């Protein structure tokens, strides 16, 4: 009887520890959100979105930074997603299991852990100087694409692996070619998972500052970027600059910009959850 009580006790203690760990994370997040909201809500106005940076904190806005972020993210998605998904399909569905593919897999996993500033240095030499793209949106997007490719590939492979083998075998048994199996059976089922991985990877990219500063993204831009070869700045760089200014007015602007960045991030994640929910219901077996 006593032993049983002790066992039950141990179970309860573990549950409490696990609960405390969960609550800890949530409390820190809530405090952070509360603090930023308290400082930043006051500056959110229409002119905050339509104004360029300024030396006067009360006139400074995020127009060029927000547009830059949208441009860079759109191009990054355009480059990274097809490459990442195609690489994942090859590795999961086509590649033979041998030393070479294991070596490639190992390298992709290692690349996911490389500090982002290294990608910045690579981007500087390869895109900015090598391909002479200068400090353009295109160079930034290509650099960020490299940065998130490993994450995308890993997530897409995970999604492909989750597709039951029986589904493929059934299709093969009916005489479908490999491409037909992938196109009509595997991809549609794996699509929601791939989409989630894609959004998570882009969420990582949207907050990156270091690689973009390395390739020479700018801080003061008082015009709208109009094409992929234009100079640009992004929200994290603008936030970083405002936070380090002496005037308290800039700190409030930084908090406001953080709120905007959070809103963009959350709506991206929200979209992923919505799409996953909608698409998942359609494929049941």
């Amino acid at each position: 009887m006593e032993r049983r009580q002790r066992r039950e006790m141990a179970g309860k203690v573990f549950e409490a520890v696990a609960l405390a760990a969960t609550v800890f994370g949530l409390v820190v997040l809530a405090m952070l959100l509360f603090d930023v909201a308290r400082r930043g809500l006051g500056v959110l106005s229409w002119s905050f979105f339509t104004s360029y940076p300024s030396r006067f904190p009360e006139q400074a806005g995020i127009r060029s930074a927000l547009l830059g972020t949208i441009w860079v993210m759109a191009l990054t998605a355009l480059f990274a997603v097809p490459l990442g998904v195609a690489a994942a399909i090859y590795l999961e569905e086509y590649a033979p299991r041998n030393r070479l593919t294991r070596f490639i897999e190992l390298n992709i996993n290692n690349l996911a852990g490389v500090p982002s500033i290294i990608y910045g240095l690579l981007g500087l030499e390869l895109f900015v100087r090598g391909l002479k793209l200068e400090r353009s949106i295109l160079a930034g997007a290509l650099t960020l694409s490299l940065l998130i490719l490993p994450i995308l590939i890993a997530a897409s492979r995970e999604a492909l692996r989750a597709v039951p083998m029986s589904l493929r075998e059934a299709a093969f048994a009916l005489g479908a070619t490999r491409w037909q199996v992938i196109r009509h059976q595997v991809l549609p089922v794996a699509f929601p998972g791939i989409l989630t991985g894609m959004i998570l990877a882009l969420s990582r990219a949207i907050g990156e500052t270091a690689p973009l500063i390395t390739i020479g993204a700018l801080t003061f831009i008082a015009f709208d970027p109009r094409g992929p070869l234009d100079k640009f700045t992004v929200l994290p760089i603008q936030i970083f600059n405002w936070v380090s200014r002496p005037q308290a007015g800039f700190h409030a602007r930084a908090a406001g910009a953080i709120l905007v960045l959070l809103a963009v991030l959350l709506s991206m994640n929200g979209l992923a959850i919505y799409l996953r929910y909608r698409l998942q219901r359609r494929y049941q077996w």
Partner: protein
Amino acid sequence: MNLRSALAAWVLGLALVVAACQPAATPPATPPASQPGGEVQPAATPAPQLSGEIKIDGSSTVYPISEAVAEEFQKAHPNVKVVVGISGTGGGFKKFCAGETDISNASRPIKTTEMETCQKNGVEFIELPVAYDALSVVVNPQNDWVACITVAELKKIWEPEAQGKITRWNQVNPQWPDAPLTLFGPGTDSGTFDYFTEAVVGKEDASRGDYTASEDDNVLVQGVANDRYALGYFGLAYYLENQDKLKALAIDNGKGCVAPSEQTVRDGTYQPLSRPLFIYVNRKAADRPEVEAFIRFYLTQGPALAKQVGYIPLPETVYQLALQRFEARKVGTVFKGGPQVGVSIEDLLKAEQ
């Protein structure tokens, strides 16, 4: 969204990018022939409207001034795109000497190694002082035992030998209390760190390492404001914005105590902790009309703008001398490649002539 539409969206996106990368369609080269018998059109002579792009990068200390000048200049010349980046004085010179930027912001004069890089790449530069910056040494407002500190005492606190040894106030000066001494200062990547160590310890980058370091001066402000026994140093602008939370010490450089203020920085008595800030202009870029106009604008409107963003303008004559220097396209540095402490920029510019 199914696969097909996703693919279609991607192809469309890529097509848009490729299209946007193409050079804009050039207008027809030949003007329409004048109508025979028609009235003779007066030759169109539009006012030379400036356009183009001016690329500026470099020191974060000089950034607020260049940002302010760029903001005002663009209001006057909406077709000129002025962009300003922050990559530190050293990082800025790397790009500048590679010919990637037109103007480099610098919180110290160019170094010999950087000049060699510039020379190797055929980049000549014009050096122009734009404002003063001062470093402030600050303590907590509750600190009632010190109002003035000598350079020797600062050296005793900050030199590398002090590491682990000078940890209490009375070790620096026996009249000060037997209380812990907590130190705050910028990290080693900062130009402020370079300058302070050179000015106080006597050797660039020679500093103790056991202090709270941050590249963000606002962190240092918070640190000193929350600790009664703290001492720290950073740019004067950060003290001026936080005067209710901090107390700035007067500095005794052998000629009595001098508190940091616009007056004492301008007349050169707040030494050795005040320094000039510079911009370096690429000699080739200087002949582009938009860059030329920008520099003239900088040296005439810059003083007032520098003051607005918390810096101290140089004496009027210095701007005139700098402008002359620019108009004469005089290349090179008046410094000999190393940061010099306690020099009057006015004397140097005059000596040059």
